[in-house]
């Protein structure tokens, strides 16, 4: 099933590290814009903590950091070789 394909082996746009960096800079920019929007737009919130500046931003960011770090620590206890049950 695996085969060499003439068309797909040329250098792609994403193969160049500087292009990957460009995407990341766009992400940084978008993050900044949307946090600033938070300060400008009038927002309605149900809970008081929702009204804190950039609540969703830092909740999303630290939520994911905690998620990944905790999951990584879980590996120490839970990870077994692939053929563990075989």
């Amino acid at each position: 099933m695996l085969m060499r394909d003439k068309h797909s082996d040329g250098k792609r746009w994403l193969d160049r590290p500087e292009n990957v960096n460009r995407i990341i800079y766009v992400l940084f920019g978008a993050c900044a814009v949307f946090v600033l929007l938070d300060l400008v737009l009038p927002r309605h919130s149900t809970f008081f903590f929702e009204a804190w500046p950039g609540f969703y931003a830092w909740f999303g960011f630290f939520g994911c950091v905690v998620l990944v770090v905790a999951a990584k620590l879980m590996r120490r206890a839970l990870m077994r070789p692939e053929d563990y049950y075989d």
Partner: protein
Amino acid sequence: MIEGMTPAAIFFAGAVLIPFLRDWPRKIVLLGIPMLGLAHLLALNPMDAGAIEFLDYRLVTVRIDALSLIFAGIFHIAAFILALYSLHVRDTMQHVAMLVTAGAAIGAALAGDLITLFVFWELTAIASVFLIWARRTERSYAAGMRYLLIQMASGLLLLFGAILLARETGSVEFTQMQLGSVATWAIFLGFGIKCAFPLLHNWLQDAYPEATVTGTVVLGSFTTKLAIYALARGFAGESLLIPIGALMTAFPIFYAVIENDLRRVLAYSLNNQLGFMVVGVGLGTDMAINGAVAHAVNNILFKGLLFMSMGAVLLRTGTAKGSELGGLYKSMPWTTGFCLVGAASISAFPLFAGFVSKGMILAAAAEQGHWFVWLVLLFASAGVFHHSGIKIPYFAFFAHDSGIRCREAPVNMLAAMGLVAGLCILIGVYPDALYRMLPHAVSYVPYTVDHVVTQIQLLLFSALAFTLLMRTGVYPPELRSTNLDLDWLYRRFVPRGAALVERWSDALFAIVGHAGDMMMRRVLHLVFHLHGPQGVLARTSPIGVALLWVAVLLVAALFLYYL
């Protein structure tokens, strides 16, 4: 068409027909059955139909109302998409199992009483296990067996509860229930197993990734969503479901981060999505029920789409493991695109399906002041984006180039994925198409400045976290591994425990046996002593001695007589 007949019958008839057909006729039947079923469903009158009197109980095989109609409807649409996705497959067993599973799920969604529900409930389990066994490996056989046992247990609990309930109330009607009696708890637990409640969840992650390429998509479409329907019908507003659902959204995502098999990542992610729906059912308000139902419909679409894209990868490369894949966008650009639509939908990006349904559940939780549950759901939303939205497409199609070059997925698979991707965007852009079919009138407005801006913030900063963790090397690499989950209990602990008990009992038997041996020796020795040669009871004695004894006895008798 017979008036009042369940559309499930059309699927079963198709399943009977399939083994006799090859090539084009089979393809036409596979695609035609779901369309015929849907046409029949929509022609049915919104009332109880197909009622049967059975042993003093009234069984209703077809109940049409808003709740059953939307589930039966989406099951038909899913069946059509799955037929399209599996058109290239040359395996009668899989086609038959697919049609029976779909038919049984539709029959169950339309069931008006618990006995009919039970019959179809068990049938979904029995039919769908063949989609796991169809992989025809020892591993899939064992996984299928575990799956079947657990699913049967769910059905038996339902039957047990239904019988008790019938004795208590004299009716087997499937309607709103209250937790409190043994009967309702048994039914609740039966639903809970199929819905993959925490601690009852592990059959899902264990079995789904072991099924065939198309089988996993079929499994992921019907079983668990049927359980959501059953909870919404039987236990709407049961507050116990709120913490259960919140827990379900949160804990599987940790596993999803470290799991290597991308189809298993999706199985954990499915568990997380079910959690949102369970919370919605538990909240029980009109908006919450609408949210749960809408999310179930969307989940069938976008989760199906993700499973389909990973199925295509598995078909073309022979593996779905993150550690082996990467750079596939070069070989499979269409599949990559469809996967990204699925990823955006499940992550609830504005203009994609998840955005218009998940928001409803969060809004319903906020409305009732459940601030902690709301925070858990928000955390889970960020987590969904992290493992389903980023991890799945990133490790399969981007990341480092694995050097794998393969063909694009077969055209029928691309057509199925394209169709679902279109539906995901349609619902995201024009949510009224979905909202109109929900059980309650919808007052919720998804596209407000607040919702759009906050959701984009959440997603952007989750992506930022992923990027920074990746760049700094903190992000755990994809490793060939097995992660221990609850299935360890019955796959390792119990068998090993049993082996240990066996060894101990062997030792115990040895001791007991030895003691018994000694005792037997003593008994034998005594018997030998009494009966053996020269034994007291084995001596031969002359007749005279016997006469003497008779005389003695006579004297004794006479003596006693004269006394």
